[in-house]
C-alpha cells in the first residue's frame, strides 16, 4: 500500500515538474510530423514568419497571465488592441514624419488608459472581470469605428518608417521578436523578484489571506489590468505595422487565442499559478498550429476543431496533474 502511494506521488509530481518539457516534446513531435508532410515548413523563411506572428500573441499572453493569476479574465484586449492600433495609424498617416518610437509610445499610452479604466471598474467598482471587460470590449470597439469613421487605414497611407517597425531587424532578429523577448525578461524578473510580483500571486492564490496580510488588493487588480492594457496598446501598434492596415475589426476575437495560449501554457483559470516559460511555449504551440495546419492542407473547418481539441486536452491534463499534486500534498508527511 505504502509503495503504491509513493509511486503515485512521484508520477504526479514529475508531470507537474516537467509540464513544460512535455509541451516542448509535443511541439517537436508536431513539427516533425508537419515537416514530413510538407518540407517547406521548417524553412528559415517560414520559421521566421511563424515566430514573428507568435511574438504579438505571446506579448499579450504575458499580460493575460497576470490577469488570470489574480482570478480575472480580460475579454477587451482585442478591442483595446484595435483602438490603439487605429489611433496610432491615423496619427502616422496625418504626421508621416513622426518617429516610430513615438507611435509605439502613443499606442501603449492609449492601451494604458483603457486598462486603467477597466482596472478601476473591477477593483473600486467591484464589477466581475468578465462583465466589465465584456462591456468595455464593445465600448472600445465602438470607439475604434468612431475614430476611423468606419474606414480603413491602408498601407499606402502609412509612412515607410512606421511599417518598418515590424520588418526591421535588431542584431539580426526581427524587431517584434526582440520586443517580445525584452518583455519576457522584464516580466520574469517582475514576477519572481519583486514585491509586487509576489503580491499578485498571493492575491490570486488566496485573496482573503492576502488582505489580512496587509496587501492592498485594489491596487494589485488595478495594476494587472493597467499592464494588460498597456501591452494590448503596444501590440496594437505592432499589429498595424506588421499587417500594414488598420481596420475597425482588427483582432476581433483575438482575446480567445490569447486565453488559449495561457491555458495551454499551464496558467490555471482558478488563479494563483502560471509561469512565463509555460506561456511562451503555449503561444509557440498555438502559432505552429495556426501556421502548420494550412501547410498540410487541413481544411479551415478542421483547423478550428483541432485547435479546440488540443486546448481541451491541455486543460484535462492540467486538471489531472492538479488532482495528483493535491493528493500528493495530502499524503506526503514524514511518519
Amino acid at each position, binding site marked *: 500500500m505504502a509503495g503504491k502511494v509513493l509511486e503515485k506521488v512521484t508520477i504526479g509530481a514529475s508531470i507537474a515538474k516537467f509540464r513544460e518539457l512535455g509541451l516542448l516534446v509535443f511541439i517537436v513531435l508536431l513539427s516533425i510530423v508537419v515537416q514530413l508532410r510538407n518540407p517547406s515548413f521548417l524553412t528559415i523563411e517560414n520559421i521566421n514568419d511563424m515566430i514573428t506572428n507568435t511574438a504579438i500573441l505571446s506579448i499579450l499572453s504575458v499580460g493575460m497571465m497576470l490577469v488570470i493569476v489574480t482570478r480575472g479574465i480580460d475579454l477587451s484586449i482585442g478591442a483595446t488592441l484595435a483602438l490603439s492600433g487605429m489611433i496610432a495609424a491615423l496619427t502616422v498617416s496625418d504626421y508621416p514624419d513622426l518617429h516610430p518610437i513615438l507611435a509605439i509610445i502613443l499606442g501603449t499610452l492609449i492601451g494604458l488608459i483603457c486598462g486603467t479604466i477597466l482596472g478601476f471598474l473591477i477593483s473600486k467598482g467591484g464589477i466581475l472581470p468578465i462583465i466589465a471587460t465584456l462591456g468595455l470590449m464593445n465600448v472600445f470597439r465602438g470607439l475604434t469605428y468612431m475614430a476611423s469613421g468606419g474606414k480603413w487605414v491602408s498601407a499606402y497611407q502609412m509612412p515607410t518608417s512606421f511599417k518598418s517597425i515590424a520588418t526591421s531587424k535588431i542584431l539580426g532578429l526581427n524587431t517584434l521578436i526582440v520586443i517580445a523577448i525584452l518583455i519576457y525578461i522584464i516580466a520574469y524578473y517582475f514576477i519572481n*523578484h*519583486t514585491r509586487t510580483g*509576489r503580491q499578485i500571486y498571493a492575491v490570486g492564490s*488566496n485573496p482573503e*489571506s492576502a488582505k489580512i*496580510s*496587509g496587501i492592498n488588493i485594489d491596487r494589485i487588480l488595478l495594476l494587472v489590468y493597467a499592464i494588460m492594457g498597456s501591452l494590448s496598446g503596444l501590440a496594437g501598434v505592432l499589429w498595424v505595422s506588421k499587417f500594414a492596415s488598420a481596420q475597425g475589426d482588427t483582432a476581433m476575437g483575438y482575446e480567445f487565442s490569447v486565453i488559449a495560449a495561457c491555458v495551454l501554457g499551464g496558467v490555471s483559470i482558478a488563479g494563483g499559478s502560471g509561469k512565463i516559460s509555460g506561456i511562451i511555449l503555449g503561444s509557440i504551440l498555438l502559432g505552429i498550429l495556426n501556421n502548420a495546419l494550412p501547410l498540410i492542407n487541413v481544411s479551415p473547418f478542421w483547423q478550428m476543431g483541432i485547435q479546440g481539441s488540443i486546448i481541451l486536452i491541455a486543460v484535462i491534463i492540467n486538471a489531472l496533474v492538479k488532482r495528483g499534486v493535491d493528493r500528493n500534498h495530502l499524503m506526503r508527511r*514524514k511518519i
Partner: protein
Amino acid sequence: MGHEKVQKGTKRILWNEMHTEAKKLLDELGANFDPRIQMGGLSVAQQQIVEIAKALSTDAKIIIMDEPTAALTKKESEELYKITEQLRDKGTAIIFISHRFEDMYRLASKVTVLRDALYIGTWEVDGISNEDLIIAMVGREITQRFPKRKAKIGKEVLRVEGLGKTGFFADVSFTLHRGEIVGLTGLVGAGRTEVFQSIFGITTYDEGKVYVKGNEVRITNPLHAMNMGIGYLPEDRQKQGLVLQWGIGRNITLSALERFSKQGWLNDDHEAEVAKSLSERMNVKANSIFDLASSLSGGNQQKVVVAKLLTADLDIIILDEPTKGVDVGAKFAMYEIINELADQGYGVILISSEMPEIIGMSDKVIVMREGRITAIMEQTEVTQEAILEASMMNKATLKA
C-alpha cells in the same frame, strides 16, 4: 439531499415527497424546523443536525462523524450527544472523530488514538484515565497543562473606549499592557472576532476610540494596523492565514515583504534567512522552508501563521482561537509560544472558547455576550462558573 426522489419515466423531482421524508428524518432527530428553510438561516448546530439527517437518509449502518463538536458550544454539543446516543441505540455504529476529551467520555465505548499518522492503540473508555490518553496522544507526559509564567506587566499599549458597530457589538472598552495576556471569551457569536477585526481594519466600527501606545488612531486597513504595531492571527488559518499552495518560507514573509525588498526588488537570501530562523524558533516540523503549507498538520500550520506575525515589528498580538482544531501536544506548544511572546513584552489578546485555556493562560479575562462585555476579571478571581454566568446571563438578570 444528495439523492433525490425521482418519478419514474418523467424524471421529475418529487419535491413534496422529499420534504415529507426530510421532515420525518429531522423529527427522528428531535429537530423541529422546516426542511424548506435555507441552510444559511440555521445555526451551526442545526446545520450539523441536517448533515446527520443527510447521512441517515441513506439508511447508513455506519456513520463517521469528523469533529462534529468542534464548532459547537457546550449546550449544542449536548444536543448532538443525545442524537448520537439515539442513533447508537437504534443499532447504528458510529465512528466519532474528535480532539475533545469530553466527547470521548460522554459518548464512546472504545477509543482509538492516532498520532502522526500512526496507530497508537485502542482502549475501553472505562479503563483509561485522562493522563493515559494524553500520554498516548502526545507521546510524552505533560505534567503541566498550562506552563507557569511570571507576568511582567508594563506600559499600556492598547486602550479601547466605547467601541461599537451597529448590529455587531456595542460599548466595548478595555486596556492591554505590555507583557500582559488578556483572554477574551464568550459563546460563539458573541462578537469577539468582530471587535478585533474592526480594530485591525478588516472591517470598520461606527463609534468609540482606539488608542495605540497612548495615541488615538483610526485604522483603515490591515497594513495600517501592522504599521501601528498590531498583528492579527485569524480564526481560520487555512482560509485567512495561509496561502496553502505556497511554501512555508513565502507564507512567513508575505505580510512583511517591504522588509525584504529595496525599491520593490526582493532580497531572496535575506528573506530565506529570516523565514528559516523564525520557522526554527517556532519549531515548525518540516523538511525545509520550501515545504508547502498544505502539507503541514494543523498545529504546524498555526505555528507558521504565528511566525508570520513575528516578521513585522509589533507591540500587540491578537490571537483568534489559536488552538482550534489542533491536538493536545500542539496546544501545549502554542501555550509556550504565547507565554514567550508575553515575556518578550508583547501585549497579547487571546480569543478562545475553551475555558480551561482562558483560565490557565490569561492575566485578565474579558467575557462578551451578545456584542457587549459582561465581565472583566483579574486572574485571581476567575472561575469557570463566573465565566459561564457572564457569557450566558439573560438580559433580564443584567443589572442596568
